[in-house]
């Protein structure tokens, strides 16, 4: 049906529409389980043990039905380790059979040659294998003994099965920031695409962030490396705070929390983003009346996030239009005000603000599913003294929001 034939308002940028929210998320992360075979020190969701309240198969299928009705193009599945769910492959098939694409993150533990062939046969599936060191020493110190070998075996299986362009997904840390070329080489050797994401101080990541987040010099080198490699390297829009150095990185360069992005956790709770598992950012539950759509469209928290944001302490900074104050979750979990600088502000405002945070005053995660038993660990673990005992600080990062389609996406096009 024809609309009134008005010329589109050419001054409105797409990012402005995105800031006000969409009818459904572009990029939805769904953590299927808190269970994980690993105990990564920086796990965003403090995963390890399964939660008895996790969505069962029927509930998970009804979530997929709802995503289909809302025309969510694809869902980023993570955990925990999603593949340890006995119904994992069943749910993947159900989603792709419903026209909902699946991108999932895995440490590789269940990616056998047979599983890889099955995945490769489904044109709606993308696989991200997590690796946080280009050498076993660097990787296994963070992800646990044997995890490097597991990831490489999975990459080999995927390559052997002919799966189209698997992703090698790396959280950039102080210890691997110098290995970017090595990661790229590993990805290239396996026909994979490299994906770099930011270390967030969420979940157990809060305990190790001080020791593991890249130094200022490393951030600058990372920015230059990302500019040099452009869209061939994916970032999930992870590093938009680095745009304050000058040129914008590929992607939307905005915080999509509650606007274009959100998280469904294993028990069906909906949070503003995958890095913000905390009551402060809990918008509702898919088990509530109206399901996920009611949360996405009616949550008071999401309405608040979709209102124009005040730059607060950052509004007088010349770089604010580039970085927009950075990552909400990074600020929150380091004890910084949400309307102030990102803790890794490239202008140094974050470091100054962090110096004023009263030790111990940063919010703790609202839930913790870390393994209670001592993880199998070869060497010393770089952990700060925190509220949890050090033996409980370990499991893989939840899948950060993969916005790979956005990496090639120009908000200015196509103009009508």
């Amino acid at each position, binding site marked *: 049906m024809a609309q009134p034939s008005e010329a*589109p308002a050419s001054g409105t940028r797409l990012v402005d*529409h995105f800031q006000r929210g969409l009818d459904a998320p572009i990029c939805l992360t769904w953590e299927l389980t808190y269970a994980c075979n690993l105990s990564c020190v920086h796990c965003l969701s403090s995963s390890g043990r399964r939660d008895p309240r996790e969505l069962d198969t029927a509930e998970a299928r009804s979530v997929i039905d709802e995503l289909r009705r809302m025309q969510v193009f694809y869902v980023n599945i993570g955990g925990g380790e999603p593949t340890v769910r006995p119904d994992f492959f069943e749910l993947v098939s159900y989603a792709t059979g419903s026209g909902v694409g699946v991108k999932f993150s895995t440490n590789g533990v269940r990616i056998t040659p047979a599983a890889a062939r099955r995945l490769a046969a489904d044109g709606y599936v993308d696989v991200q294998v997590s690796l946080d060191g280009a050498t076993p020493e660097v990787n296994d110190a963070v992800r646990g003994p044997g995890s490097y070998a597991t990831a490489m075996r999975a990459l080999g299986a995927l390559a052997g099965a002919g799966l189209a362009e698997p992703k090698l997904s790396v959280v950039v840390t102080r210890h691997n920031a110098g290995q970017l070329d090595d990661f790229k080489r590993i990805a290239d050797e396996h026909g994979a695409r490299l994906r770099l994401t930011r270390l967030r101080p969420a979940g157990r990541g809060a305990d190790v962030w001080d020791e593991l987040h890249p130094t200022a010099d490393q951030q600058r080198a990372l920015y230059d490396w990302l500019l040099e490699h452009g869209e061939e390297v994916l970032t999930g829009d992870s590093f938009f705070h680095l745009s304050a150095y000058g040129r914008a990185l590929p992607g939307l360069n905005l915080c999509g929390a509650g606007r274009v992005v959100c998280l469904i956790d294993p028990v069906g709770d909906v949070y503003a983003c995958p890095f913000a598992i905390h009551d402060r950012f809990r918008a509702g539950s898919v088990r509530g009346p109206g399901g996920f759509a009611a949360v996405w469209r009616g949550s008071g928290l999401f309405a608040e996030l979709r209102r124009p944001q005040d730059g607060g302490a950052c509004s007088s900074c010349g770089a604010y239009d580039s970085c927009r104050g950075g990552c909400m979750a990074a600020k929150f979990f380091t004890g910084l005000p949400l309307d102030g600088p990102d803790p890794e502000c490239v202008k140094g405002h974050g470091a100054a603000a962090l110096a004023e945070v009263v030790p111990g005053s940063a919010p703790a995660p609202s839930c913790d599913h870390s393994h209670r038993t001592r993880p199998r660990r070869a060497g010393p673990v770089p952990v700060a003294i925190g509220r949890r005992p050090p033996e409980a600080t370990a499991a893989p990062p939840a899948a950060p929001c993969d916005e790979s*389609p956005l990496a*090639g996406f120009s908000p200015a*096009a*196509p103009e009508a």
Partner: protein
Amino acid sequence: MQPAPAPGPAPPGPSGFDPGRAWALHPRVSVRPEPFGALLYHFDTRRLSFLKDRLLLDVVRALGERPSARAACEHAGVPAGLLPRYERALAALAAGGMLVPRDGEP
């Protein structure tokens, strides 16, 4: 990997797009209406694109049933003065693989 549509207005007469012939959405493209227009996702290239207004959405929806892109524009009610602009938008979508020519039709 398909190139993303070029930012900004496409140059006049972009190669490969003839508004006089029949076009259709690529069968692996999904269209989701949004208040500002629509989002498009291509399941082969894993690329996201968007339609910046609802009228363009009407044009895209009409493409598959009309003998030409230009006829689809007219059917959707694009004013004659805006035709070049909407044809450029369609050309950008075609360049990104979102639209494909309908075979067997002139």
